[in-house]
């Protein structure tokens, strides 16, 4: 791009302000990552990185033999977020298809904003709901080992994922030109055949991005899971038992950990793992979006 050297000062000032705004957000991200890295480094010298990734016990507060195995937390995070995704993907996609293809304009004008508002509810409210109400329902239906458990967190997270998915996926489906639907219908396709063979393939990049984005949100969600899942750190794969996620471990432990201790630095390491995970998920979403792009 060639620069115009005769810009008036006002234009120059605006350009400068915009550049500063962009750089400051990039720098903030870099600073967070740097801080995580610096905080985590001392941990790497005092504990074995292999033990950290393969250890099955997370018991950092033991006075003599603290154990920092991330697996129970990692498995807890995965159980809760995959469980949430399993519920949220069919419901969210069904909801997006309904809104984009079946709902009348008037109904859509009410439902879409309503679902989007759901995305703006503070996560502590969802956590509160899970803690007080949802856990009681689950207790009645599944008779779980512990009242606060992975399933409780997963269902609540699913409710939080759906609005994000619907917002993004419905926009993608809406962007598919009406003319393509007409072409399909005029060939004698049914409405569902048109959705399946034309609308979904043409909006696939957006739909996948919606799923991955929502999943990233689920992995990083803290307050809701902290309140919903009971925070027991034993390693198991039972949805009806209590788990602690990586995010909840950081949030809870930081309140009482001694500044500069081994435990303190290990928590940074957990945060670093979480950061890398969500980064990879977002990267994946970006890749998928470009890979499956059907140009229309």
């Amino acid at each position, binding site marked *: 791009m060639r620069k115009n050297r005769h810009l008036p000062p006002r234009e120059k000032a605006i350009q400068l302000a915009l550049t500063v705004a962009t750089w400051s957000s990039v720098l903030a991200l870099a600073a967070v990552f740097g801080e995580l890295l610096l905080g985590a480094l001392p941990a790497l010298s005092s504990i074995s990185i292999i033990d950290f990734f393969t250890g099955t016990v997370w018991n950092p507060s033991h006075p003599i033999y603290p154990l920092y195995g991330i697996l129970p937390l990692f498995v807890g995070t995965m159980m809760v977020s995959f469980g949430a995704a399993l519920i949220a993907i069919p419901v969210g996609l069904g909801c997006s298809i309904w809104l984009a293809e079946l709902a009348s304009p008037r109904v859509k004008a009410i439902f879409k904003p309503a679902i989007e508002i759901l995305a703006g509810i503070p996560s502590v409210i969802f956590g509160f709901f899970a803690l007080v109400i949802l856990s009681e329902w689950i207790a009645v239906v599944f008779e779980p080992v512990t009242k606060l458990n992975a399933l409780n967190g997963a269902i609540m997270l699913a409710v939080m994922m759906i609005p994000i998915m619907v917002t993004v996926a419905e926009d993608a489906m809406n962007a598919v030109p009406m003319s393509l639907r007409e072409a399909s*219908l005029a*060939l004698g396709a049914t409405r569902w055949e048109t959705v399946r063979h034309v609308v979904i393939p043409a909006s696939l990049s957006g739909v996948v991005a919606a799923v991955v984005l929502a999943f990233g949100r689920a992995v990083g969600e803290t307050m809701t899971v902290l309140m919903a899942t009971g925070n027991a750190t034993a390693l198991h794969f039972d949805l009806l038992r209590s788990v602690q996620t990586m995010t909840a471990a950081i949030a809870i432990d930081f309140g009482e950990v001694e500044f500069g201790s081994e435990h303190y630095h290990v928590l940074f390491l957990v945060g670093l793992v979480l950061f890398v995970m969500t980064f990879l998920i977002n990267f994946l979403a970006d890749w998928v979006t470009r890979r499956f792009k059907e140009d229309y």
Partner: protein
Amino acid sequence: MTIAIRTDDLHVYFDKNHALKGVSMDIEMNQVTAVIGPSGCGKSTFIRCINRMNDLIPGCTVKGKVLVDGMDINDDDVDVVDVRRRIGMVFQKPNPFPKSIYENVAYGPRLHGVVETGNGKGRRRKHTKRELDEIVEHSLRRAALWDEVKDRMDKSGTSLSGGQQQRLCIARTLAVDPEIILFDEPCSALDPIATAKIEDLLVDLKKDYTVVIVTHNMQQAARISDRTAFFYLGDLIEMGDTKQIFERPQKEFTEQYITGRMG
């Protein structure tokens, strides 16, 4: 001559807007029938009644009869999917699917399968790969596109030029073997050379199909159609042999439009 389509007192309303005001028309089999008239006269609305595409528009009501083979396609018992399979449509702007050229043409046949009539009842099965290949090749040849695309069947339909895209859309329509093909201003987005190709194709297609074309290009109607219908403000003003309509129009409105004093 046999009547392929007969409309009887056909009215269309978009909410309160009365877009088509009682059109009764006979369209003959194996002819090209052109529908002309100024913008907003209801000509597109009219042909979209013939394959019930107006069903898709919120707030649209259709009253009156559209008889195809003596059967009213607006009847509640009629399966709209079947109507649209038998009555194909090519749109104003070429709208190939963002799929390969092959998949564009194979789309309809894949949906419908083959109906086999053995011991009295029809059974539906999928096409074999070979049958599908044949349908695709035959349809592309019929749409005069085969030679241009035969070496790049796996390229996206959207990578073709505008005129080629429109012929691909025609091939896609032919692949489901309709009886009637409706063209809604098929050349309005095309250059003169591409337009000429489509026009030749339309004239050729009438041997096997009944063709109805909406056009705002009067020369086009004069060149390719056997009969012409002139619409104005939702009314069918006049219909007759194309030669008669253009040389000796009976109504004053028609004459004004054709001589360019209106519209």
